[in-house]
Protein backbone atom coordinates (compact mmCIF):
# COMPACT_ATOMS: atom_id res chain seq x y z
CA UNK A 1 0.00 0.00 0.00
CA UNK A 2 1.50 3.31 -1.08
CA UNK A 3 0.71 6.60 0.56
CA UNK A 4 -0.77 9.26 -1.68
CA UNK A 5 -0.32 12.01 0.91
CA UNK A 6 3.10 13.13 -0.34
CA UNK A 7 2.12 13.63 -4.00
CA UNK A 8 -1.17 15.26 -2.92
CA UNK A 9 0.74 17.69 -0.72
CA UNK A 10 3.00 18.50 -3.67
CA UNK A 11 -0.06 19.11 -5.85
CA UNK A 12 -1.44 21.56 -3.26
CA UNK A 13 1.93 23.30 -2.88
CA UNK A 14 2.37 23.79 -6.60
CA UNK A 15 -1.22 24.93 -7.12
CA UNK A 16 -0.97 27.54 -4.38
CA UNK A 17 2.44 28.90 -5.37
CA UNK A 18 2.86 28.58 -9.14
CA UNK A 19 0.43 29.75 -11.83
CA UNK A 20 0.00 27.53 -14.89
CA UNK A 21 1.72 28.53 -18.14
CA UNK A 22 -1.47 29.61 -19.96
CA UNK A 23 -2.40 32.05 -17.16
CA UNK A 24 1.09 33.53 -17.01
CA UNK A 25 1.07 34.05 -20.77
CA UNK A 26 -2.30 35.80 -20.67
CA UNK A 27 -1.19 38.14 -17.86
CA UNK A 28 2.02 38.98 -19.70
CA UNK A 29 0.00 39.85 -22.80
CA UNK A 30 -2.23 42.10 -20.68
CA UNK A 31 0.85 43.89 -19.34
CA UNK A 32 2.30 44.40 -22.81
CA UNK A 33 -0.95 45.84 -24.11
CA UNK A 34 -1.67 48.18 -21.20
CA UNK A 35 -1.03 51.89 -21.50
CA UNK A 36 2.40 52.71 -20.08
CA UNK A 37 3.00 54.72 -16.89
CA UNK A 38 -0.51 54.21 -15.59
CA UNK A 39 -1.68 52.77 -12.29
CA UNK A 40 -3.14 49.87 -14.30
CA UNK A 41 0.22 49.04 -15.81
CA UNK A 42 1.76 49.34 -12.34
CA UNK A 43 -0.80 46.85 -10.99
CA UNK A 44 0.00 44.37 -13.77
CA UNK A 45 3.72 44.75 -13.04
CA UNK A 46 3.11 44.03 -9.35
CA UNK A 47 1.23 40.89 -10.42
CA UNK A 48 4.25 39.77 -12.46
CA UNK A 49 6.56 40.37 -9.51
CA UNK A 50 4.16 38.48 -7.30
CA UNK A 51 4.11 35.46 -9.61
CA UNK A 52 7.92 35.30 -9.64
CA UNK A 53 8.22 35.75 -5.87
CA UNK A 54 5.61 33.09 -5.07
CA UNK A 55 7.31 30.52 -7.27
CA UNK A 56 10.80 31.39 -6.04
CA UNK A 57 9.86 31.26 -2.38
CA UNK A 58 7.32 28.47 -2.71
CA UNK A 59 4.78 30.59 -0.83
CA UNK A 60 1.10 31.25 -1.64
CA UNK A 61 0.40 33.50 -4.63
CA UNK A 62 -2.51 34.95 -2.65
CA UNK A 63 -3.06 34.88 1.11
CA UNK A 64 -6.62 33.82 0.38
CA UNK A 65 -5.90 30.26 -0.65
CA UNK A 66 -9.62 29.98 -1.16
CA UNK A 67 -12.05 27.13 -1.62
CA UNK A 68 -10.23 23.86 -2.17
CA UNK A 69 -11.85 22.12 -5.12
CA UNK A 70 -10.65 18.65 -6.10
CA UNK A 71 -11.80 17.01 -9.36
CA UNK A 72 -10.76 13.39 -9.42
CA UNK A 73 -11.11 10.60 -11.96
CA UNK A 74 -10.48 7.15 -10.54
CA UNK A 75 -10.20 3.62 -11.92
CA UNK A 76 -13.40 1.60 -11.59
CA UNK A 77 -13.59 -0.10 -8.20
CA UNK A 78 -11.22 2.40 -6.56
CA UNK A 79 -11.56 2.99 -2.79
CA UNK A 80 -12.75 6.60 -2.73
CA UNK A 81 -13.28 6.62 1.02
CA UNK A 82 -9.67 5.81 1.84
CA UNK A 83 -8.49 8.34 -0.73
CA UNK A 84 -10.67 11.03 0.79
CA UNK A 85 -8.90 10.48 4.12
CA UNK A 86 -5.53 10.91 2.39
CA UNK A 87 -6.71 14.15 0.80
CA UNK A 88 -7.78 15.45 4.20
CA UNK A 89 -4.41 14.57 5.67
CA UNK A 90 -2.62 16.36 2.82
CA UNK A 91 -4.85 19.43 3.21
CA UNK A 92 -4.19 19.59 6.93
CA UNK A 93 -0.44 19.22 6.37
CA UNK A 94 -0.47 21.89 3.66
CA UNK A 95 -2.15 24.23 6.15
CA UNK A 96 0.55 23.56 8.76
CA UNK A 97 3.21 24.31 6.15
CA UNK A 98 1.54 27.58 5.13
CA UNK A 99 0.66 26.53 1.57
CA UNK A 100 -2.96 27.00 2.60
CA UNK A 101 -4.43 29.56 4.99
CA UNK A 102 -6.88 28.38 7.66
CA UNK A 103 -10.01 28.86 5.59
CA UNK A 104 -12.72 26.75 7.18
CA UNK A 105 -14.93 28.74 9.53
CA UNK A 106 -17.98 27.48 11.44
CA UNK A 107 -20.79 29.61 10.02
CA UNK A 108 -22.67 29.82 13.31
CA UNK A 109 -19.94 30.16 15.94
CA UNK A 110 -17.28 31.84 13.77
CA UNK A 111 -14.71 29.34 14.99
CA UNK A 112 -11.93 28.55 12.54
CA UNK A 113 -11.18 24.81 12.41
CA UNK A 114 -7.53 25.71 11.88
CA UNK A 115 -6.78 22.93 9.39
CA UNK A 116 -9.18 23.59 6.50
CA UNK A 117 -11.28 20.56 7.44
CA UNK A 118 -14.95 20.79 8.31
CA UNK A 119 -18.43 20.35 6.87
CA UNK A 120 -18.11 21.06 3.14
CA UNK A 121 -14.36 21.66 3.16
CA UNK A 122 -12.48 20.62 1.15
CA UNK A 123 -14.80 19.92 -1.79
CA UNK A 124 -14.08 16.67 -3.61
CA UNK A 125 -15.76 15.50 -6.83
CA UNK A 126 -15.15 11.90 -7.86
CA UNK A 127 -15.93 10.27 -11.18
CA UNK A 128 -14.72 7.02 -12.74
CA UNK A 129 -12.76 6.46 -15.91
CA UNK A 130 -11.55 3.37 -17.77
CA UNK A 131 -7.87 3.79 -16.90
CA UNK A 132 -5.72 2.36 -14.13
CA UNK A 133 -4.38 5.73 -12.99
CA UNK A 134 -5.79 8.72 -11.07
CA UNK A 135 -6.38 12.05 -12.78
CA UNK A 136 -6.40 14.62 -9.96
CA UNK A 137 -7.07 18.28 -10.62
CA UNK A 138 -7.17 21.07 -8.06
CA UNK A 139 -8.54 24.57 -8.17
CA UNK A 140 -8.05 27.12 -5.39
CA UNK A 141 -10.64 29.87 -5.66
CA UNK A 142 -10.44 32.91 -3.40
CA UNK A 143 -13.38 34.48 -1.57
CA UNK A 144 -13.13 37.88 -3.25
CA UNK A 145 -13.89 36.45 -6.66
CA UNK A 146 -16.36 33.92 -5.24
CA UNK A 147 -18.41 36.80 -3.81
CA UNK A 148 -18.87 38.48 -7.20
CA UNK A 149 -20.30 35.39 -8.91
CA UNK A 150 -23.99 35.66 -9.81
CA UNK A 151 -26.97 33.64 -10.97
CA UNK A 152 -29.64 35.16 -13.21
CA UNK A 153 -33.11 33.83 -13.92
CA UNK A 154 -34.37 34.71 -17.39
CA UNK A 155 -36.38 36.64 -18.30
CA UNK A 156 -34.88 39.34 -16.09
CA UNK A 157 -37.18 42.32 -16.36
CA UNK A 158 -34.90 44.69 -14.43
CA UNK A 159 -32.13 44.17 -16.97
CA UNK A 160 -34.47 43.68 -19.91
CA UNK A 161 -32.93 40.29 -20.63
CA UNK A 162 -35.06 37.68 -22.41
CA UNK A 163 -34.54 33.97 -23.01
CA UNK A 164 -32.27 34.42 -26.02
CA UNK A 165 -28.63 34.98 -26.94
CA UNK A 166 -28.99 38.73 -26.45
CA UNK A 167 -30.46 38.24 -22.98
CA UNK A 168 -27.73 35.78 -22.04
CA UNK A 169 -25.06 38.22 -23.15
CA UNK A 170 -26.71 41.06 -21.26
CA UNK A 171 -26.76 39.33 -17.87
CA UNK A 172 -23.18 38.08 -18.21
CA UNK A 173 -21.95 41.61 -18.89
CA UNK A 174 -24.05 42.84 -15.98
CA UNK A 175 -22.09 40.50 -13.72
CA UNK A 176 -18.78 41.87 -15.05
CA UNK A 177 -19.93 45.45 -14.53
CA UNK A 178 -21.18 44.80 -11.01
CA UNK A 179 -17.94 42.99 -10.10
CA UNK A 180 -15.80 45.97 -11.20
CA UNK A 181 -12.30 45.30 -9.82
CA UNK A 182 -13.54 43.50 -6.71
CA UNK A 183 -13.04 40.02 -8.12
CA UNK A 184 -9.37 40.95 -8.68
CA UNK A 185 -9.50 41.64 -12.38
CA UNK A 186 -8.36 40.79 -14.97
CA UNK A 187 -10.49 37.74 -14.31
CA UNK A 188 -11.86 34.71 -16.11
CA UNK A 189 -15.55 33.82 -16.36
CA UNK A 190 -17.02 30.34 -16.15
CA UNK A 191 -20.62 30.55 -17.34
CA UNK A 192 -23.29 27.88 -17.51
CA UNK A 193 -26.43 28.43 -19.55
CA UNK A 194 -29.22 26.24 -18.15
CA UNK A 195 -29.15 23.58 -15.43
CA UNK A 196 -30.72 24.07 -12.02
CA UNK A 197 -29.61 26.33 -9.17
CA UNK A 198 -26.89 23.98 -7.93
CA UNK A 199 -25.80 21.97 -10.98
CA UNK A 200 -25.15 25.18 -12.85
CA UNK A 201 -22.89 26.67 -10.18
CA UNK A 202 -20.87 23.45 -9.85
CA UNK A 203 -20.52 23.13 -13.61
CA UNK A 204 -19.55 26.80 -14.01
CA UNK A 205 -16.59 26.27 -11.67
CA UNK A 206 -15.60 23.07 -13.41
CA UNK A 207 -15.10 25.15 -16.58
CA UNK A 208 -12.02 26.58 -14.85
CA UNK A 209 -10.32 23.26 -15.59
CA UNK A 210 -10.09 24.48 -19.19
CA UNK A 211 -7.03 26.52 -20.20
CA UNK A 212 -7.36 30.19 -21.10
CA UNK A 213 -6.08 29.62 -24.63
CA UNK A 214 -8.23 26.60 -25.51
CA UNK A 215 -10.99 26.84 -28.10
CA UNK A 216 -14.58 25.85 -27.48
CA UNK A 217 -15.46 23.06 -29.95
CA UNK A 218 -19.05 24.32 -30.16
CA UNK A 219 -19.02 27.00 -32.85
CA UNK A 220 -21.85 29.12 -31.40
CA UNK A 221 -20.32 29.03 -27.90
CA UNK A 222 -16.90 29.88 -29.30
CA UNK A 223 -18.37 32.95 -30.97
CA UNK A 224 -20.20 34.00 -27.82
CA UNK A 225 -17.04 33.56 -25.74
CA UNK A 226 -15.09 35.78 -28.13
CA UNK A 227 -17.76 38.43 -28.32
CA UNK A 228 -18.21 38.56 -24.52
CA UNK A 229 -14.45 38.86 -24.00
CA UNK A 230 -14.28 41.72 -26.47
CA UNK A 231 -17.21 43.57 -24.92
CA UNK A 232 -15.95 43.08 -21.36
CA UNK A 233 -12.59 44.53 -22.35
CA UNK A 234 -14.31 47.59 -23.75
CA UNK A 235 -15.82 48.46 -20.35
CA UNK A 236 -12.58 50.12 -19.22
CA UNK A 237 -12.87 48.50 -15.78
CA UNK A 238 -9.30 47.28 -16.24
CA UNK A 239 -6.86 45.61 -13.83
CA UNK A 240 -8.16 45.90 -10.22
CA UNK A 241 -10.77 48.37 -11.49
CA UNK A 242 -8.12 51.06 -12.16
CA UNK A 243 -9.32 51.43 -15.76
CA UNK A 244 -7.53 50.01 -18.77
CA UNK A 245 -7.57 47.56 -21.60
CA UNK A 246 -7.84 44.18 -19.91
CA UNK A 247 -10.84 43.47 -17.69
CA UNK A 248 -11.07 39.76 -18.50
CA UNK A 249 -8.45 37.27 -19.65
CA UNK A 250 -11.00 34.75 -20.84
CA UNK A 251 -14.62 33.60 -20.97
CA UNK A 252 -15.57 29.92 -20.80
CA UNK A 253 -19.13 28.86 -21.59
CA UNK A 254 -21.01 25.61 -21.09
CA UNK A 255 -24.58 24.47 -21.57
CA UNK A 256 -26.83 22.19 -19.52
CA UNK A 257 -30.39 21.20 -20.33
CA UNK A 258 -33.01 22.98 -18.25
CA UNK A 259 -36.59 22.59 -17.14
CA UNK A 260 -39.10 24.34 -19.38
CA UNK A 261 -39.92 26.66 -16.47
CA UNK A 262 -36.32 27.57 -15.58
CA UNK A 263 -33.68 29.46 -17.51
CA UNK A 264 -30.65 30.17 -15.38
CA UNK A 265 -27.47 31.86 -16.48
CA UNK A 266 -24.84 31.23 -13.83
CA UNK A 267 -21.55 33.09 -13.72
CA UNK A 268 -18.51 32.14 -11.65
CA UNK A 269 -15.68 34.63 -11.58
CA UNK A 270 -12.05 33.58 -11.19
CA UNK A 271 -9.46 36.17 -10.18
CA UNK A 272 -6.20 36.78 -12.06
CA UNK A 273 -4.53 34.51 -9.52
CA UNK A 274 -6.08 31.59 -11.34
CA UNK A 275 -4.72 28.67 -9.36
CA UNK A 276 -5.24 25.42 -11.21
CA UNK A 277 -3.04 22.35 -11.40
CA UNK A 278 -3.39 18.64 -11.97
CA UNK A 279 -1.47 15.38 -11.87
CA UNK A 280 -1.62 11.88 -13.22
CA UNK A 281 -0.89 9.58 -10.31
CA UNK A 282 0.00 5.97 -11.08
CA UNK A 283 -0.87 2.98 -8.91
CA UNK A 284 2.54 3.26 -7.20
CA UNK A 285 1.54 6.73 -5.96
CA UNK A 286 4.04 8.42 -8.27
CA UNK A 287 3.32 11.61 -10.17
CA UNK A 288 3.63 10.59 -13.82
CA UNK A 289 2.70 13.88 -15.34
CA UNK A 290 1.71 17.46 -14.51
CA UNK A 291 -1.41 18.41 -16.43
CA UNK A 292 -1.00 22.19 -16.82
Amino acid sequence: MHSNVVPLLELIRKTSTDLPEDVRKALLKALEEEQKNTVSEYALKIMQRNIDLAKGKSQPLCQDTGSILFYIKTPIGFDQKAFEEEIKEAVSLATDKGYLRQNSVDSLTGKNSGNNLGPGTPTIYFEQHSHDYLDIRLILKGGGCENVGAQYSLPDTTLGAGRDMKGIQKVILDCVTKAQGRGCSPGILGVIIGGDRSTSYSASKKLFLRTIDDVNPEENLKELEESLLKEANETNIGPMGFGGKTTLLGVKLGVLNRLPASFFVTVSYMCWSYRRQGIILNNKSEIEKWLY
Partner: protein
Amino acid sequence: MAVLEPHKFTLPLTEKDVRSLKKGDLVFLSGIIYTGRDAVHKYLYEGHEPPISLENAVIYHCGPVVLKEDNIWRVTAAGPTTSIREEPYQATLIEKFKLKAVIGKGGMGEKTAKACRDFGCVYLHAIGGAAQVYAEHIISVKNVYLREEFGDPEAIWELEVKDFPVVVVIPAS
Protein backbone atom coordinates in the same frame (compact mmCIF):
# COMPACT_ATOMS: atom_id res chain seq x y z
CA MET B 1 0.00 60.39 -17.62
CA ALA B 2 3.46 61.18 -16.33
CA VAL B 3 5.77 58.54 -14.91
CA LEU B 4 4.39 57.31 -11.59
CA GLU B 5 6.41 58.88 -8.80
CA PRO B 6 5.66 57.45 -5.36
CA HIS B 7 4.82 59.75 -2.46
CA LYS B 8 6.85 58.30 0.43
CA PHE B 9 5.63 58.59 4.02
CA THR B 10 6.87 57.44 7.40
CA LEU B 11 3.99 56.57 9.74
CA PRO B 12 2.12 57.93 11.60
CA LEU B 13 0.53 60.13 8.96
CA THR B 14 -0.52 63.67 9.85
CA GLU B 15 -3.78 65.17 8.68
CA LYS B 16 -1.71 67.47 6.44
CA ASP B 17 -0.05 64.43 4.80
CA VAL B 18 -3.41 62.83 4.23
CA ARG B 19 -5.02 65.93 2.76
CA SER B 20 -2.13 66.44 0.34
CA LEU B 21 -2.95 63.20 -1.49
CA LYS B 22 -4.95 63.05 -4.72
CA LYS B 23 -6.84 60.24 -6.39
CA GLY B 24 -4.47 58.07 -8.44
CA ASP B 25 -1.34 58.98 -6.42
CA LEU B 26 1.07 56.14 -5.78
CA VAL B 27 2.02 56.01 -2.09
CA PHE B 28 4.80 54.07 -0.30
CA LEU B 29 4.21 53.68 3.44
CA SER B 30 6.83 52.82 6.07
CA GLY B 31 6.14 52.18 9.74
CA ILE B 32 3.48 50.37 11.75
CA ILE B 33 0.12 49.24 10.32
CA TYR B 34 -2.59 46.99 11.78
CA THR B 35 -4.58 44.33 9.98
CA GLY B 36 -8.30 44.26 10.64
CA ARG B 37 -11.07 42.65 8.65
CA ASP B 38 -14.65 41.44 9.10
CA ALA B 39 -14.59 40.20 12.70
CA VAL B 40 -12.45 43.06 14.02
CA HIS B 41 -14.54 45.75 12.33
CA LYS B 42 -17.80 44.37 13.72
CA TYR B 43 -16.20 43.96 17.18
CA LEU B 44 -14.94 47.54 17.35
CA TYR B 45 -18.12 48.94 15.83
CA GLU B 46 -20.12 47.25 18.58
CA GLY B 47 -18.16 49.30 21.10
CA HIS B 48 -15.49 46.88 22.34
CA GLU B 49 -12.25 48.62 23.21
CA PRO B 50 -9.32 47.66 20.97
CA PRO B 51 -6.52 45.70 22.67
CA ILE B 52 -4.01 48.36 21.49
CA SER B 53 -4.44 52.05 20.77
CA LEU B 54 -5.62 52.63 17.22
CA GLU B 55 -5.44 56.44 17.49
CA ASN B 56 -4.27 57.88 14.15
CA ALA B 57 -3.54 54.35 12.96
CA VAL B 58 -3.49 52.79 9.52
CA ILE B 59 -5.80 49.78 9.16
CA TYR B 60 -5.13 47.12 6.53
CA HIS B 61 -8.00 44.93 5.33
CA CYS B 62 -6.02 41.72 5.22
CA GLY B 63 -6.13 38.17 6.53
CA PRO B 64 -2.51 37.08 6.21
CA VAL B 65 -0.81 33.71 6.21
CA VAL B 66 1.56 33.78 9.19
CA LEU B 67 3.95 31.05 10.31
CA LYS B 68 5.67 30.75 13.67
CA GLU B 69 9.29 29.66 13.29
CA ASP B 70 11.65 29.53 16.29
CA ASN B 71 9.03 31.45 18.26
CA ILE B 72 9.05 34.33 15.76
CA TRP B 73 6.05 35.15 13.60
CA ARG B 74 6.72 35.55 9.91
CA VAL B 75 4.15 36.79 7.37
CA THR B 76 4.36 34.61 4.27
CA ALA B 77 1.41 36.01 2.30
CA ALA B 78 -0.46 39.26 2.90
CA GLY B 79 -2.46 40.82 0.08
CA PRO B 80 -5.61 42.88 0.63
CA THR B 81 -9.14 41.55 1.06
CA THR B 82 -12.31 43.13 -0.37
CA SER B 83 -13.06 46.32 1.56
CA ILE B 84 -16.73 46.89 0.79
CA ARG B 85 -17.74 44.34 3.45
CA GLU B 86 -16.51 46.83 6.08
CA GLU B 87 -18.66 49.65 4.69
CA PRO B 88 -21.26 49.40 7.50
CA TYR B 89 -18.54 49.86 10.14
CA GLN B 90 -15.68 51.85 8.60
CA ALA B 91 -16.98 55.39 8.98
CA THR B 92 -17.61 54.91 12.70
CA LEU B 93 -14.11 53.54 13.20
CA ILE B 94 -12.54 56.39 11.22
CA GLU B 95 -14.34 58.90 13.44
CA LYS B 96 -13.73 57.10 16.73
CA PHE B 97 -10.01 56.37 16.29
CA LYS B 98 -9.13 59.23 13.91
CA LEU B 99 -7.78 56.61 11.51
CA LYS B 100 -5.47 58.25 9.00
CA ALA B 101 -5.63 55.61 6.31
CA VAL B 102 -7.50 52.46 5.41
CA ILE B 103 -5.85 50.00 3.00
CA GLY B 104 -7.81 47.38 1.11
CA LYS B 105 -9.07 46.52 -2.32
CA GLY B 106 -12.10 47.18 -4.49
CA GLY B 107 -12.99 50.61 -3.08
CA MET B 108 -15.59 51.61 -0.48
CA GLY B 109 -18.94 53.40 -0.36
CA GLU B 110 -20.19 56.92 0.11
CA LYS B 111 -20.42 56.66 3.91
CA THR B 112 -16.71 55.88 4.17
CA ALA B 113 -15.84 58.53 1.57
CA LYS B 114 -17.70 61.14 3.65
CA ALA B 115 -15.88 60.06 6.83
CA CYS B 116 -12.57 60.38 4.93
CA ARG B 117 -13.44 63.97 4.03
CA ASP B 118 -14.86 64.87 7.45
CA PHE B 119 -12.11 63.38 9.61
CA GLY B 120 -9.03 63.44 7.36
CA CYS B 121 -8.57 59.83 6.32
CA VAL B 122 -7.59 58.32 2.98
CA TYR B 123 -8.59 55.01 1.38
CA LEU B 124 -5.64 53.33 -0.27
CA HIS B 125 -5.95 50.52 -2.81
CA ALA B 126 -3.48 47.66 -2.62
CA ILE B 127 -3.09 45.29 -5.58
CA GLY B 128 -5.37 42.33 -4.95
CA GLY B 129 -3.76 38.92 -5.06
CA ALA B 130 -0.22 40.31 -4.75
CA ALA B 131 0.33 38.52 -1.44
CA GLN B 132 4.02 37.87 -2.00
CA VAL B 133 4.87 41.41 -3.02
CA TYR B 134 3.18 42.74 0.11
CA ALA B 135 4.80 40.08 2.30
CA GLU B 136 8.16 41.34 0.99
CA HIS B 137 7.33 44.83 2.24
CA ILE B 138 6.48 43.55 5.73
CA ILE B 139 9.70 43.62 7.70
CA SER B 140 8.44 42.17 10.96
CA VAL B 141 5.45 41.14 13.04
CA LYS B 142 5.42 43.27 16.18
CA ASN B 143 2.50 41.61 17.88
CA VAL B 144 -0.83 39.89 17.41
CA TYR B 145 -4.13 40.57 19.17
CA LEU B 146 -7.50 38.75 19.36
CA ARG B 147 -5.95 35.69 17.76
CA GLU B 148 -7.60 33.24 20.16
CA GLU B 149 -10.99 34.82 19.62
CA PHE B 150 -10.98 35.25 15.84
CA GLY B 151 -8.29 32.92 14.45
CA ASP B 152 -5.24 33.83 12.36
CA PRO B 153 -6.90 35.40 9.29
CA GLU B 154 -9.20 37.62 11.38
CA ALA B 155 -6.79 38.66 14.16
CA ILE B 156 -5.19 42.11 14.52
CA TRP B 157 -1.59 41.77 13.36
CA GLU B 158 0.72 44.66 14.20
CA LEU B 159 3.09 44.85 11.26
CA GLU B 160 6.16 46.90 10.49
CA VAL B 161 6.23 47.74 6.79
CA LYS B 162 8.73 49.37 4.45
CA ASP B 163 7.75 51.16 1.21
CA PHE B 164 4.38 49.42 1.19
CA PRO B 165 2.96 50.28 -2.28
CA VAL B 166 -0.66 51.48 -2.51
CA VAL B 167 -2.76 53.78 -4.68
CA VAL B 168 -5.06 56.59 -3.50
CA VAL B 169 -8.64 55.79 -4.49
CA ILE B 170 -10.69 57.83 -1.98
CA PRO B 171 -8.87 61.04 -1.04
CA ALA B 172 -9.62 63.16 2.03
CA SER B 173 -9.89 66.40 0.13
